[in-house]
């Protein structure tokens, strides 16, 4: 049984005087036990909204969110905190400085989920659990009484991770966990995340704009554009042989040491509007180097191009190898 199944998930926001903004549009994907799934896409693609839906901080407009066979999409976000599922799905936030309460010490931050969601015998047991979580993430005990502004970026990141794993969740959503960190610290945190996944058997939904990092840490990758999944497949393969033109442009745009912008396809123009999108037009139409008249009349469905690898494009084939 999969840890998470999302089926035709939709989230539409009403925009006064304009219509409906399709933030997430019929998104379906699964995350298996112990699997690490990467979620990539640029600003406006809907990944932040999808993250909020999966962590049940937002209610879907339509579609199902299924956790281990149980439909949790029906539980309103407001009451989700009181259910048995809350401890099972946790999140590591992007900016550790913003996601740690400035008035809480590191100890308090890690203890909070334990206090609220796990039945702790007494204060001593709580301290033990917090110390254990801190140990797992390599956070020195003497740092626990400190406030966030007294901790370095890497230390804050560890507190954020300790807090998220304290309850031993099944699914850990990581929203750009190393984006705010220096590259020298990033490696340590990434290795920690890889280790934790192995040791604790968690599944990951790893959101990042850094495709190199996603490639390193994830088994499968989902690429989103304007609320829809445009491609999904095994990490290595998706980046080496992207099938969708957008993925190709994305992968080609990553700067590489020693690479001199070889044959980079720059996307012209701006993304189409997510408000009241025409359902028959491909979302990428207007910027696609490969587009034809057909793309305007018939939006391509997500279709398999190779085992486990699917793309939403009429002309999707596993493209020529992109070097690297």
């Amino acid at each position, binding site marked *: 049984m999969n840890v998470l199944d999302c089926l035709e998930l939709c989230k539409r926001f009403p925009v006064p005087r304009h219509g409906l903004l399709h933030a997430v549009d019929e998104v379906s994907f699964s995350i298996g036990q112990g699997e690490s799934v990467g979620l990539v896409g*640029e*600003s406006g693609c809907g990944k932040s909204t999808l993250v909020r839906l999966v962590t049940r901080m937002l209610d879907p407009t339509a579609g199902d969110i299924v956790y281990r066979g149980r439909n949790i999409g029906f539980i309103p976000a407001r009451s989700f905190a009181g259910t048995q599922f809350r401890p099972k799905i946790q999140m590591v936030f992007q900016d550790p400085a913003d996601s740690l309460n400035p008035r809480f010490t590191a100890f308090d931050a890690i203890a909070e989920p334990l206090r609220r969601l796990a039945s702790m015998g007494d204060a001593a047991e709580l301290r033990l659990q917090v110390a254990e979580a801190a140990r797992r993430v390599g956070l020195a005990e003497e740092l626990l009484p400190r406030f966030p502004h007294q901790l*370095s*970026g*890497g230390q804050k990141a560890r507190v954020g991770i300790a807090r998220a794993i304290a309850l031993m969740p099944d699914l850990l959503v990581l929203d750009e966990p190393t984006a705010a960190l*220096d*590259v*020298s*610290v*990033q*490696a*340590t945190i*990434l*290795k920690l995340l*890889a280790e934790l996944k192995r040791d604790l058997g968690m599944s990951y939904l790893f959101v990042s*704009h*850094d*495709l*190199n*990092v996603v*490639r*390193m*840490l994830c088994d499968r990758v989902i690429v989103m554009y304007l609320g829809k999944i445009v491609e999904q497949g095994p990490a290595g393969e998706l*980046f080496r042989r992207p099938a969708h033109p957008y993925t190709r*442009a*994305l992968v*080609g*745009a*990553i*700067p*590489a*040491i*020693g*690479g*001199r*912008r070889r044959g*980079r396809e*720059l*996307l012209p*123009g*701006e993304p189409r509007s997510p408000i009241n999108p025409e359902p028959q037009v491909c979302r990428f139409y207007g910027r696609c180097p490969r587009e034809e008249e057909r793309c305007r009349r018939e939006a391509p469905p997500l279709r398999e191009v190779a085992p486990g690898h699917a793309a939403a494009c009429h002309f999707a084939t596993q493209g020529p190898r992109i070097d*690297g």
Partner: protein
Amino acid sequence: MDALPLLKVENLSLEFRTRSGTVRALENVSLEVGKGETVGIVGESGSGKSVLSFAVLRILDPAGRVTSGSIRFAGMDMLAAGEADLQEVRGREIAMIFQNPRTALNPIRRVGAQIEDVLRAHAATLREDLKRRVIETLARVRIPDPERRYAAYPFELSGGQCQRVMIALALACNPALLIADEPTTGLDVTTQAAIMQLVSELARERHMATILITHDLALASEHCDRIVVMHAGHVVETSPTRLLFERPCHPYTSRLIASTPTPEIAIESLASIPGNLPDLRRADLPSCRFYARCDRALDKCAAEPLPALSPGPGRRVHCFNPL
């Protein structure tokens, strides 16, 4: 490279007086930029790379003080120059673009008006011509539909478009030097590619020198002729780009390269740099500020003043035990 560098910073040291002590933000920093050259300043947070650019333009926070060294731009002594002379230079000869383009623009003024301000201040333009020139500039930075965008407010534009407007502002007067401080941090990777290509193209067209300040090694490797690597207020290594990556000399540079994720390497081989930046308020800092984190450290690295070795043409490294 021309014999006379456009910008020459020599042994610049600067400090900040703060509530909790004096921060020695830069120490003996030297840097040269030739006409038409693109130089990258690469470093992590706290390396002093942004502070250096503010010092060049003399727009440091009042708590900052240059304690030694010199900055010469096209022969002019920037540290001795008066405010009137500096205002001539800023915007006209040296322009700067910043991170977070939306916040760097004035949110309550239309972008067209903001570009007009620059033109009016520095280029003698007739009033009738102003609007036309602004629209021309917007078109040159490839903003779609420039006539309509002329009247737009920054909040109506995307991050990428705001950055293009900033570039337009910066280039309005054809400066000789453009300082780009993390211009694409926070932008999507496809937008980043487009913006960097625009900057490179415009620089090439106008034979304009560029300083690209970034924490992204790969970005610097693609767009810069030479790279200056900074750590904790020191320049540790300077080198032409290709040589830097083929054969880094300073241990920090090498670790930095090894900790940058690339498509080829697996997570196990990703390096990290142990320890933290030294506290720059301390009076007892070792000579080499990388001493505590370096696996090639020798005793003299902490005590003796750092040498300036030249391991190759155009290369300089400040290390007692280079690779």
